[in-house]
């Protein structure tokens, strides 16, 4: 069946509609702010101030954004193949294991950049491995990838707790974490980048992983739109029958796509583990895997949309912390609400405003000739 809705210009589809969805999500979030007796406008001002008002604010905003770029890309790559990888959270979590293995092995013998390369590879491998089983089961045994990836999130959580309270914990330590990484596994900060704009950074953990994330975004763009594999992924995502006709092997494509998706999620672990905490500890992902869903939806699964969407969410995370200082009734959990509303309006209800917008544009386009009825059947 053809698309149920009239065709709209590209800028409406990729610009206006996501914007409207985003605005509605924020308006509803504003209602919640009103409900707890605070002024939504003041909250918004505090948010922006907190996120961009200082060097540290920007540093933190971009630090969070780094996580969300990775997880957003993870969700987006799978979306392009028509798959919903809801397991970014777990893949990122076990990705931390890859980071830790590389870091603990190399931190005393190698410079940071060698450790970073090794950790990137390892985190990607472990993240991909964690996505492999759900992918294989989906492709070969028909088990729903959404359910299996959810299950794998929980299995990952149990596995990590087990490792961190057991084998990975240094003897005598009471903290469920690995030992602190030595200098060879501590990533350099990017403070100079912010200081170039005349601001000071004291403590923000904004680090080179951000550049890696941008490189990953560029890599995903190349992969999806410039390679044969990306072409096959998109063919599969748009039309499995056309993919079959074109000789694209579905099992292979599903598995490969999920491996890439899982690897991207796994690499997210670099940022908090090596860039901030400098040890592997419990729960370092803090929901970034799920934020990736919102980021991918808002960014329309395109890296050029994902990076700004990730920065938007980075801003929410950082600015939200600032609001919490000023407004006792609002904590950072406000962000979780906004995140949920964004997913609701930009994802599940994405078509809600479409008919009305299509009507508005239909009205404008009334004068133009319609495509002839004989053409389609």
């Amino acid at each position, binding site marked *: 069946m053809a698309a149920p809705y009239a065709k709209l210009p590209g800028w409406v589809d990729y610009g206006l509609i996501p914007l409207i969805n985003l605005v509605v999500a924020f308006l509803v979030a504003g209602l919640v702010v009103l409900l707890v007796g605070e002024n939504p406008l003041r909250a918004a001002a505090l948010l922006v101030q907190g996120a961009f008002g200082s060097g540290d604010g920007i540093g933190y905003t971009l630090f969070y954004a780094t996580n969300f770029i990775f997880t957003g890309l993870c969700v987006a790559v799978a979306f392009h193949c028509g798959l919903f990888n809801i397991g970014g959270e777990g893949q990122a979590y076990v990705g931390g294991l890859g980071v830790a293995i590389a870091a603990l092995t190399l931190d005393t013998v190698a410079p940071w950049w060698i450790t970073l390369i090794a950790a990137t590879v390892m985190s990607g491998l472990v993240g991909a491995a964690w996505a492999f089983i759900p992918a294989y089961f989906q492709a070969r045994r028909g088990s729903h990838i959404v359910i299996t990836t959810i299950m794998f999130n929980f299995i990952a959580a149990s596995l990590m707790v087990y490792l961190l309270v057991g084998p990975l914990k240094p003897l005598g330590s009471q903290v469920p974490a690995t030992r602190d990484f030595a200098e060879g596994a501590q990533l350099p900060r990017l403070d100079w980048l912010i200081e170039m704009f005349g601001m000071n950074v004291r403590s923000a953990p904004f680090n080179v992983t951000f550049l890696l994330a941008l490189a990953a975004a560029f890599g995903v763009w190349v992969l999806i739109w410039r390679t044969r594999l990306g072409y096959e992924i*998109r*063919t599969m995502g748009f*039309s499995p029958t*056309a993919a079959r*006709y074109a000789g694209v092997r579905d099992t292979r494509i599903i598995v490969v796509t999920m491996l890439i998706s899982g690897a991207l999620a796994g690499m997210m672990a670099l940022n908090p583990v090596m860039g901030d905490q400098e040890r592997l500890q419990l729960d370092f992902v803090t929901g970034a895997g799920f934020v990736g869903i919102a980021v991918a939806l808002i960014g329309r699964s395109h890296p050029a949309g994902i990076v700004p969407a990730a920065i938007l969410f980075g801003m929410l995370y950082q600015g939200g912390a600032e609001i919490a200082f000023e407004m006792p009734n609002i904590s950072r959990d406000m962000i979780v609400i906004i995140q949920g509303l964004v997913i609701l309006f930009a994802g599940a209800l994405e078509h809600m405003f479409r008919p009305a917008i299509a009507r508005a544009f239909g009205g404008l386009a009334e004068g133009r000739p319609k495509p*002839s*009825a004989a053409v389609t*059947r």
Partner: protein
Amino acid sequence: MNKFLPGTDPLMAPYAIELAGINKSFGAVHANRDIDLAVEQGTIHGIIGENGAGKSTLMSILYGFYQADSGEIRVGGQPVTINTPNDAIALGIGMVHQHFMLVENFTVLENVMLGAEGAQLLSGGIARARAELERLEREYALEVDPSAIIEELPVGLQQRVEILKALYRGAEILILDEPTGVLTPPEADHLFRILRQLKEQGKTIVLITHKLREIMAVTDNVSVMRQGEMVATRKTAETSVEELAELMVGRRVLLRVEKGEASPGAVKLAVENLTVRDSRGVTMVDDVSFEVRAGEIVGIAGVAGNGQSQLIEAIAGIRRAENGRVTLDGEPVSVTGEADPAMLRTRGMAHVPEDRHHMGLVLQFEENENAILGYHAKDSYVNGPMLDLASIRRDAAEKIEKYDIRPPNCRLKTANFSGGNQQKIVLAREMEQDPAVLIVGQPTRGVDVGAIEFIHKRIIEMRDAGKAVLLVSVELDEIRSLSDRILVMFAGRIAGERGPEATEGELGLLMAGVADETEAPRTKERSTEPETEAAE
């Protein structure tokens, strides 16, 4: 168009159903255009037409599944409004859908009760329903075990359950949409006996089909639909298969295609004893054998749904065949194993699929991306793992010019091209690969007149360039004007072979499954002997 309305005697009982001026559009598609129809009480009224002629849409309107954009419906002489299936049921209209509307893991009884349970609790209704069902089964000789699970029943019995469902709801008018599509011939004959019996009990039956044999076998009156219009109504006794076939297909005004003599060369594609089943296990292609030589066009004619689609999909490696052998340019193709369309392409098989929207194109892609679909691993389009976009776009632009694809913009989204131009995108892609064998399915379906001529010329040019062309079309005129040999498919088998000079009536008989005793076995025999002369 002149209409012959049967039984215009005003003293007769009112018509069971009258439709007047029914119109229905889906977006730009006018599925029903000013339809008038009158169905006499207590008769079997056939509605015949090709796939996509608008028959099912019309009946869905009558059943309240869709609402007409304009027009009037009268039931038993009274104007009525049918907004939901409930309204239709209340008016005594029942429908047996083409795809059964049954819950497969329910019992027969549960399916029959669904929506007519009688009370909030099932316990009361079940006993009553069972009794009523047994009465109906006795009265109409429609035996089926009420506690059987639907998915365990053969399709013939599932259909019986659909009929029982309608009767259980007190249907006086029964609409059957392509009821024999999934039935074996004996099952179909049994269905017809049931229908006659229902008629004797005073029910009115509307039978929708594209099969002429059924119309002749069981109906009292027949209406013919073509491209959304009702083109004629006849008394079955006073018409013939030939007349109906012609009305159904229509005499399309086609510019005669300029075509020289064929000079067939070596066998490029040989198909032997090919058998293909669909996902439900129904045999769609039954032991088919034929061959196509270089420099000839072999046309496969037939009413849609007689296995042509499955045949070409199996040859093209998209659908796994149950049995049989296919050789491409003398080398065997593993049609029964892991299908691999990509490998077949590299071996010189090009395929223009019947359904360009779902198979031949990815509508969300840019034009140039579709111009490489299936060939995206070809050396000229890639640099290692990367797509060579410059080369792809240059190539696409060349094809756009050569095939006069409009608008001439290879960056435009494919969905924004018209049907004819979309088809040209597919043709350009497949023809320009210099294939040994070209399979073309429905080349001009949904294509504007201007593009039809162009497409036909290109197909002839391919033949003259020494390609082996296998053409499948439900457009008889197209088959006749392009083919050097014509194979007619009926019920999954090759019903006969004719030369291009065969008359429409002659082909129509074959398409209707009127047995061709002399030809059918000969065709089979011949195709297994590669040395025999091709056309007669």
